[in-house]
Each structure stands twice: as C-alpha cells, then as structure tokens.
C-alpha cells in the first residue's frame, strides 16, 4: 500500500499548478466572462428572430404559419393581418415567440420557405419577471438583414445565392402553385470555403 501511485497522481496536479503560473496560455483555460467574451461559433443557434429588408414594415414573413405548426414545443403564435374587407393579408399582425418555451432547435429556420426566420446569437436574455418580459412580440423580434449577414456570413451568402437564382425579389409573391423549395433543406452544395 505504498504511495508511489499516489505520488505520481500528485505530480500531475503539481504540474498543472505550476503550468498555470509559468505558462498561463496553456495552463489557464478560463475566459473571464463579463470582460472577455468568447465569440460564438457561426452556426450557433439561440433564439429565432424575424428578418426585414430596409424598413421594419417590409418583413419577409408572409404569415404562412408553417413554422408555427412545425415548431416541436409550439411556442410561435401568428395572427395574419386583415385589410378593410377582412381579406387575409400576406403579413402577420401579431407574431409572438415565447422565449420561455423555445428549445433552440432551429426547425423553424429549416422549414421556412421564405427565409424569414433565423436563429440569433444573442444569449444575454436573463429577466427578473417571466410572464410578460419573456414573451417576445413582433417588434422585439424584428431585426434587419444586415444583422443576419453580420452574424452568419456563409449562411447569408448561400441563401442570397439561392434567392437570386430563384429570382425572388424582396417582397415578390411566391410562384403560384409550387411553394419555393425551402432554402435550408435543399441540396446544399458543400460549404463554400
């Protein structure tokens, strides 16, 4: 029961202790959170946000309700806008996502045929109160396309390429009949370098 194994084990911890002072780059792996922030990977998905081009009014979402039906925990709620005669418009009047329920799975981004909803990188969303402050309404969700281009350049490049290929202008109606192939799940060419 002699302590040679114990001594070998202790040499490992001593080596780590010395390493943390002598060669901190390798010895210390801490990212001091509030001051230094590890920049998030490009494909990281936290919570969804809606995309608009130019003015917040000109949003890509057409209230087709596909994402609300596909969402596994059912945390998206859309009421389409109605004009004077009560005809349903291609724009959501209310678009709520309950961030307290969303499971960050990214399925809404995959199935959206109009590239209107994407997953954000913002993660500092802790709140003191739950029922109202974690229910994000349309105004809180809307973010410009530039934001999406900034946080996810390669995905933005690929989606713009497919949109240009299909000739989809900002607010163009989808071609009648065949809904355009959703961007995400189509045969995505191998990631451009």
């Amino acid at each position, binding site marked *: 029961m002699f302590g040679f194994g114990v001594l070998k084990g202790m040499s490992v911890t001593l080596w780590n202790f010395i390493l943390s002072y002598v060669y901190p780059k390798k010895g210390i*792996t*801490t990212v001091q959170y509030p001051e230094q922030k590890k920049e998030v990977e490009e494909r990281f998905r936290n*919570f969804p946000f809606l995309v608009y081009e130019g003015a917040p009014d000109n949003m890509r979402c057409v209230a087709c309700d596909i994402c609300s039906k596909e969402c596994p925990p059912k945390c998206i*709620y859309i*009421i389409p806008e109605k004009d004077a005669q009560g005809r349903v418009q291609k724009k959501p009047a209310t678009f709520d996502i309950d961030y307290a329920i969303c*499971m960050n799975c990214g399925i809404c981004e995959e199935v959206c045929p109009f590239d209107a909803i994407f997953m954000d990188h913002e*993660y500092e969303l802790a709140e*003191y109160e*739950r029922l109202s402050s974690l229910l994000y*309404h349309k105004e809180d969700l809307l973010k410009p396309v530039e934001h999406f281009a900034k946080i996810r350049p390669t995905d933005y490049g690929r989606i713009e390429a497919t949109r240009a290929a299909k000739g989809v202008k900002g607010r163009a109606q989808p071609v009648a009949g065949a809904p355009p192939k959703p961007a995400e799940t189509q045969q995505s060419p191998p990631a451009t370098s």
Partner: protein
Amino acid sequence: MAIDEGLNNELQKRGIFVTTLNDLYNWGRRSSIWPLQFGLACCAIEMIATACAKYDIARFGAELFRPSPRQADLMIVAGTVTKKMAPMVVRLYNQMPEPKYVISMGACAISGGPFRDGYNVLKGIDRYIPVDVHIPGCPPRPEALLDGLIKLQKKIDSQKIDQMDGYREEKSCEYPVPQYGKKGLEPRHNPDFFTPRLDWPEKNTKDNLRMPNYKPAPAPARAAGSPLPGQAATGGPSEQGVAPAQLAAQPPASEQGQ
C-alpha cells in the same frame, strides 16, 4: 440614509471609503453566493460546465456548491421540474436559511419548456416558489448563467435590509408543499403569488395542438361515444389540429395583451 454619488466619489478620490451598513451587507451577500448542489436535468450539466475551468463561476465566489440546503443561499433550479419532484423542490427551498434566492435556469424550469404538455411536467417552478431571475434557453449557455448570476447580484445590491422578506418577522417563509393527487398535484399552484397567464390565446393551447383527448377547462363535456378527435386520422392526411383559416375567423380568447 443613502450617500449621494457626488460626495461618495469625492471622498473616494481622497482615499476615504464611506459606505452604509446596508451596502456592506449587500456586498457580502453578493460576492459569496453559495449555490445548492442541486441539478435536475440537462441544464445541470451546463451548470457544472459553468463551475469548470473555462467559465469558472469561482471568480464570483460561488464555486462552493454546498450539498446541504442549510448552508446554501442560492437554489439554481436547473432542469425539468416534474410533478413527482415538485414537492421535494419546495421542501428543499423551505429548508434553506433565509436570505435565499432562486434562479430558474432553462426553459423547463421557467415554463415547463419543450415538455410542458406532458402529464408529469410542472409548467414552471414559479408556481410554488418565488423566483428571482429567469434564464431562458434550452440549455442556456454557461455565459448566459453567468449573466443571470450578475443580474442576481445587481438585484441583491438594490435590496434594503429592513424591507427584505427574510428579516421581517411576520412574513413566514414556509411555502406550502404540494401533495400528490389523483391526476396531478394539489394545489395546482400557489395562489398567493402566481396567477396562470390566460391572455395567451386559446389557439396554442394543448387542445388543438396535439393531445387528441385533452379536455380544456371550460369546454362542455364531450358527447359520450363520439369518436375521439385523435382517432379520425386513420383515413386521409387530415392534419391534427384546426386549419389556420378556420381559426383566423374565430376571435382569440382575449385580445393579445400589449
């Protein structure tokens, strides 16, 4: 007897450090929060990752995870609180000494999250115990937990010793422990401080979402023998739930509260 900022800065320039007793207490409680070693599910792994080398909760003085509730002053509810576990969570909360705080970490602890439509999942822990900070995410990143901890520290800083619940005699800090009932917990939530949100419109309730045989609260009793909604689906692809067009006509339960 707060000290106004200008005077305070002036004195600090001259090296005189003036503080009220209240600030000293708050500083003490803020910079040495000992969380309870209490993890429920996936968020617990992310909580342990926060206590590890890369995100290091020890910098905030909070790395001593106390196994016994008597010595802990922060309960991080990390994971899904099921109905079978809810009484234990409330009993643990009662056992903690008084200036205690609760962080509900992750979608499951806040609102039942992705599992909230189950028969055994509690729709959020703030039904039974008061929660200070909610951290959304499933699971929230370790940085999000640290951000939540910083916000809790700000909340502690703003507290006043005499107004805090913990130190007032008359406020008993014993929260009633729910009992196991036939189909769920009795009482379903603690009416003193929790009122379920009813403004979320009927559309997204469990009735038309998925559970074929969910009996909504006010709905009239279903006529006996009529086919259960779920069962008509063996034929064509009649997708479960109510088509959007049909729903748009029916006004939502109450105007979407702004």
